[in-house]
């Protein structure tokens, strides 16, 4: 089933009849017949109960795991058929990640953390430094590039993670419960920032979340059920 009415432009990401099961003694079906079409610049929230397979779906889209059935196409390329190296290189060039647990490397400075995707993409040092500085300014951390992650608050750490996810101008951003470890006020700020930055970058984005408030910051909300992705209630604007 297609959860989104088809647009004239070809989607940046399309999933058709994707399924996945885990085999641990006996098979446990996590995803069944998942269809999705995501246009460039579109920001979508995926909600669902715990264990329904939201994170698994993100991993499949990112090429970190392989589906048992169906097809995942990113910009026309079949991600599900790629080997690990090709999927990794695609992720490196075209995708960005934001995690619930921040995952900011503790022994690198803030700037070094943000620069990681640029370094992986072989961006020259000078250009990389300029982009990192600009990105830190955009997330409200201007001048704090030399600080160590240990001195930052949870909200600041997630800002670093957002900067890192967008610094290399990905075409798809995947955010897995990015506010799960934050207090409501900080979470609201982070979500607003995330939306602004996604808008500014023009990237498509998927936000996996439990929170209706978080989901409401996106363009549309989908709910992951055992039978696939279904449209949820229309989003309402939150915040100031």
């Amino acid at each position: 089933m297609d959860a989104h009415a088809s647009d004239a432009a070809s989607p940046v990401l399309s999933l058709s009849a994707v399924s996945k099961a885990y085999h641990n003694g006996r098979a446990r079906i996590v995803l069944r017949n998942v269809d999705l079409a995501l246009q460039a610049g579109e920001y979508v929230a995926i909600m669902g109960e715990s264990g329904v397979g939201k994170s698994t779906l993100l991993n499949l889209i990112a090429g970190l795991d392989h589906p048992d059935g169906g097809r995942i196409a990113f910009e026309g390329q079949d991600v599900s058929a790629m080997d690990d190296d090709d999927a990794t290189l695609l992720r490196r060039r075209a995708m960005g990640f934001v995690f619930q647990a921040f995952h900011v490397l503790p022994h690198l400075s803030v700037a070094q953390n943000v620069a990681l995707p640029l370094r992986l993409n072989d961006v020259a040092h000078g250009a990389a430094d300029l982009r990192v500085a600009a990105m830190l300014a955009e997330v409200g951390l201007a001048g704090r590039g030399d600080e160590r992650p240990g001195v930052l608050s949870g909200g600041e750490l997630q800002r670093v993670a957002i900067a890192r996810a967008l610094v290399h101008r990905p075409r798809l951003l995947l955010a897995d419960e990015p506010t799960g470890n934050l207090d409501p006020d900080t979470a609201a700020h982070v979500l607003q920032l995330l939306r602004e930055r996604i808008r500014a970058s023009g990237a498509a984005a998927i936000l996996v979340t439990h929170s209706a408030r978080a989901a409401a910051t996106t363009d549309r909300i989908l709910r992951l059920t055992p039978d696939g992705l279904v449209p949820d209630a229309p989003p309402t604007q939150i915040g100031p």
Partner: protein
Amino acid sequence: MSTLRSLTLTLLAGEIGARPWRALIGVLAIAIGVAMGYAVQLINHAALTEFSRTAGSLMGNADLEIRGPRGGFDETLYPRLARLPEVAAASPVVEVEAWLPAQRQTLKLLGVDVFRAAQVTPGLVGRPAQPDGGRLNLLAPDALFLSPATLAALGLQAGSTLTVQLGLKTVRLRVAGALPALGEGLRLGVMDIGAAQWQLDRLGLLQRIDLRLAPGVDVDAFARTLHDILPAGVVAATPRDTLQGTSSLSRAYRVNLNVLALVALFTGAFLVFSTQALSVLRRRSQLALLRALGMTRRELLRLLLTEGATLGFFGALLGLGLGLMLAAAALRYAGGDLGGGYFDGVRPSLHPEPLATLLFLALGILAATLGSLLPAWEAAHARPAQALKAGDEEVALRRLHIPWSGLATIAAALLLTQAGPVGELPVFGYLAIALLLVGAIIAMPQLAQAVFGRLPLARRLPVQLAFAQLVGAPGRAAIGLAGILASFSLMASMVIMVASFRQSVDDWLGAILPAPLYLRATPGGEAGYFTDAAQQRIVATPGVNRAEFLRTGQLLLDARRPPVALLARQVDPRHPGRRLPLVGLPLVPGPEESAPIWVSEAMVDLYGFRSGRLVALPIAGRSVTFLVAGVWRDYARQYGAVVMQLNDYRRLTHDRRVSDAALWLTPGATPALVAQRLRRQLAGGEQVQYLLPGEIHAVSMSIFDRSFAITYLLEVVAVLVGVIGIAASFSAQALARTREFGVLRHLGVTRRQISAMLALEGGLLALLGVTAGLLLGWAIALILIHVVNPQSFHWSMDLMMPWRSLALLAIALVAAAALTALFSGRRAMSGSAVRAVKEDW
């Protein structure tokens, strides 16, 4: 530099900067291994270079050396060879290892014909101290020319007198000049050949003829044609043969030292493995993040291997410096043979070779890289999505387990023990030990699971927590366990082997020294002997009930091997076991059969002289057939020894002189009293060395201990590295469990309870490691005793288990492990419990 490479360096610098102690331990472990290996190589190379240089200066321009036994050969061979058209020049040489009573040491004396030597071995022509008229000194009967090293060592100068012992008499020689061409390393004296034959009692005999061949003559082909001309026991050796013989003298000893040094490097590599494995485990989600951000498997593998190689590079660099210092110190204080007794009279100096230096640098890097390989491979192949979550560590460790490969490796090791030597070295024996160790380490997780899975349910909380950790995380347990296993098994195997060897030598000395008093004509060298008259005088001395005499000599059976010792003594052919420590049952030859000989175990290995075989030996210039009537154990002569009856020797050589005597005394007579009488009554009796079996025993055991000193040192270093590894592994594990400790503290578990839990975990791990290590050490000791030693040194020994030492070592290790675990845990708990549970990673 590519940005990816610079990213690798950034990440590397970040990790090393964050945990400098872990990096330092890895660097030190590799440094110690490289230092030991490099030092042994430097010392061996220095000694062999000096020895080869010495051999080179002694052979001069000679293309061939015609060499006979120590007793010499008929000098009429010289004109026959000199007249051959292929020979451009020939130089006859008399060679005697003489005892210097005043200096209490031996000196090699050569007698040369200066006119002939000038053409073949010009370095052996002396330079008289007085230029005008002094040239006649070259031919003077008492003139002796000494090498600069001898002059310096004996504190002599031109005009000094040097007394040498001959038979039981002494001869005074005058220092007439020096041998400047021989350089600083060689101790040697040269005199005129006629004077030497006369003064040193070698009339009509030569020990060597140096030949320079005509241009165009094929040296090897000519050496083969000489085989028919040369009398039995005289061989033609090329300079290459001489060098090979020199090198083979200490080859097995050197190889064994190198292997021991490599053991230190192996334990270093193992330490890198355990610290890297735990470090990779701790950073599991960080590495998974890099994969999620787009780092490929290969790039991550390269990153982690670069990390290991960097530790290896700095470790090897430090090790090379340390090795150089160690080698310089060892050469200064222990000599070029490190106490092995192979290079007497040689004073080597260090000359680091670029190739060997690079090789050890590469070995250090390789060891550390190999140590990182398995953890790096696992991290690169982990599923990033799964690894990003906490609690995935045991899954990672499970991937390092390869079921059955441990048992398969052990089985392969057992098969290899059956293979023979390669180039007279126990290559497969060493491989078997390495495989046994690796196999046992691989099998550790299964062992940990099997043993800890049977732990009973405990009531007390610390015990319950410790048991739960050991049962629930056998992978973590196995890493600590493997460190204990490696270090304790190596330690136990060496302790068992050395104790077995020591006990066997002790028993052997008891068997070969049955008499209460021994006489040796000279404490050193070969120029001392008892004449027939002296022997009769000894027998007739009051207090002497019975005397048995021994004549020592040499047999040259192969130009490329060191000579074989010939021991002519009184042996009852029906009961040879009364005088010789036989291995197996002897044959009793019939009256019609060839004369019997009894050979040492080395003769069986090196020359195939098996019991029951008829063999030809060169005696007095003839080839004589003997029956090998038995094999005996000999710890004194690694290159082979042959015992024959004194009567047979005398019948074949007509030489009645002997070098040693064993005396049995009449009731009431004491060794001291009899020695006193002999000293007084025997002409030259004051030159004789009087030895009590206890003294010989004590001196022999002290030589044994000295020659094993370097072995002990290398072993201690290997074990030390192993113990550091255990400490590093416990400390890394404790660090990785900081969050767990924080949670326990939140739940109300006291620091004391956590400490007790850690000590119990460490103690239990060490107990299992020590038990498995003892079993493995015993198996390695069996290979050392029954494969490595017989194939290296050609002697067997009996197994002896030094339970007391093993128990002490085991207790010390278990206690050290428990304490290390305790202190590591305390350090990990020193931070705030609140921060510990909030830690991002």
